[in-house]
């Protein structure tokens, strides 16, 4: 299936990327080629084959229900580009 410019624009919003004009053009072509290549998977008969999500299938790994100390707030905030002593700061969400 051919990838269109509209697909690229839509996916760039889903992926929270802002692409330049040139990037949109290049990616439309490049993603088109890559998707055309991976389309060969459609020729494989996978009827009745269960999807394999992990290479070594372990399931239901539970941690014991213990209270442990978590990362101190100060450390959790230390790498934030913008924060006050209590939390992360972001641009206005409403009315912005």
């Amino acid at each position, binding site marked *: 299936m051919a990838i269109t410019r509209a697909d690229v624009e839509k*996916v760039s919003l889903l992926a929270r990327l802002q692409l330049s004009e040139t990037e949109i053009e290049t990616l439309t072509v*490049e993603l088109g*080629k890559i998707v055309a290549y991976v389309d060969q998977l459609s020729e494989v008969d996978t009827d009745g084959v269960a999807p394999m999500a992990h290479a070594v299938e*372990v399931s239901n790994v539970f941690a014991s229900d213990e209270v442990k100390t978590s990362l101190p707030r100060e450390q959790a905030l230390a790498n934030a*580009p913008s924060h006050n002593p209590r939390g992360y700061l*972001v641009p206005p969400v409403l009315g912005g």
Partner: protein
Amino acid sequence: MSVVEHSASELLELLARGDASSVEITQAYLDRIATDDKQIGAFLHVDPDAALKQAADVDRRRKAGKQIGKLAGLPVAVKDVLCDSDTLTTCASQMLKSFRAPYNSTVVAKLKAADAVLIGRTNMDEFAMGGSTENSSFQLTRNPWDRDRVPGGSSGGAAACVAAGMAPLSVGTDTGGSIRQPAGLCGVVGMKPTYGRVSRFGLVAFASSLDQVGPLSRSTKDAALLLETLAGHDPQDATSLDTEVPRYTASIDQPLEGLRLGIVREHFAEGLDKEVEAAVREAIKVYESLGATVKEISLPHSKYAVATYYVIAPSEASSNLARYDGVHYGHRTDRAALLEELAAERKQLEAAGDQAALDALDSSLVRMYRKSRSEGFGSEVKRRIMLGAYALSAGYYDAYYLKALKVRRLIRQDFDAAFEEVDLIAGPVTAQPAFKIGEMADDPLAMYLVDLYTVSANLAGLPGISIPCGFSKSGLPIGLQLQARPLAEETLFRGARMFEQATDWHQRRPGADSRAKKH
């Protein structure tokens, strides 16, 4: 013989006998880094004072007869993707250029507990996406055998620093070949363990069902030593395997009796370089001379491995990299410029009376995410996020992601059937020796196809190793890949060691000529 020519195992003996101190050894490597790394570019960050301090501390404790760790005093380089709270963890990305992890990855914690001297952080493709280290947003790394060529990737710095004698051991990560391929192109040993063998806790995630940490070194014995230090169950990684880790170094010198070696028919198809093919076939003859039985096998779904990989890996990456939102850590776009840009767009749309476009205009928060991510990520990372987001988006999930997961099982079943008949599978690591810097820059798909022989091991979760098995006429290293069934690292090491003891390819070093060549 200079200290930097020794293997890690030899250095540990020198240290144990008191013939060399860790400070002397560490200084020798730091000297080599100081003279050579300006040209090679393997390291993103080296802190000589901190390394020498660690070394002096180990020397002091050794002298005092105190308990010391398994790698006590030995310099180890770490790929800049494993969190270390004592330094930056950048993933070679502008996104994380000043990120300081608040905790250690389990791998780094184990290295510290083993008293290794952490000598520096190695360069890589941004977020481990790439096969040449050209996608690093900070610097190029050059192949020590020919500085016009790439070292491979994504663990290019990890392989180049070992090849150039700037570290005896280094830790890399392998999602689709990122340890084995650069090891092959740089003429060193590189090993990817079974998925889940080594904890991924504190490893910055690329594709979580494929990522695995592993060793790079000058000999299989050194790789075994490093793996047995790093491997083991970790409650902090739910996918880490709760199985005992054998002492690989204890058994590695025992050759495999009656070894059944599998050769994959599909590996020798069109596209394989003649010199690479000749070296690999010669290596197989070496095994025959050592008593191995060679059997041709078929992995019928292996031709779909790259397509399967380039659906699964980008899908997982697009999900994993959603965390870089410019809020919690990492790069954030300039606030004033952002608000100005949005105001200007709004004004323009209002003037044009375009109500639909006005309704669709990003909120300031969404635009902040989009601008921060677009400024922080390089082009390959964006390409993969887009590819993954597309494959996972409504209407395409079944056709791409789900389909790829099913083919993944078929690929694994091929291996399971093959390992009924053989103990190890031997073949090339890459179809060509190292390519020229810039050669593949404009063709992402061609670059993806470089992973042809390595991605299957990640999809199937198998352990694989790349060992030196020859050189092209122009003097570029060629690697032999061996693969084993899941958790059979011991067999893999013993099999690789047999070849290493019968040949001397692993003892070749980039010559003085190439060291002196200026750029």
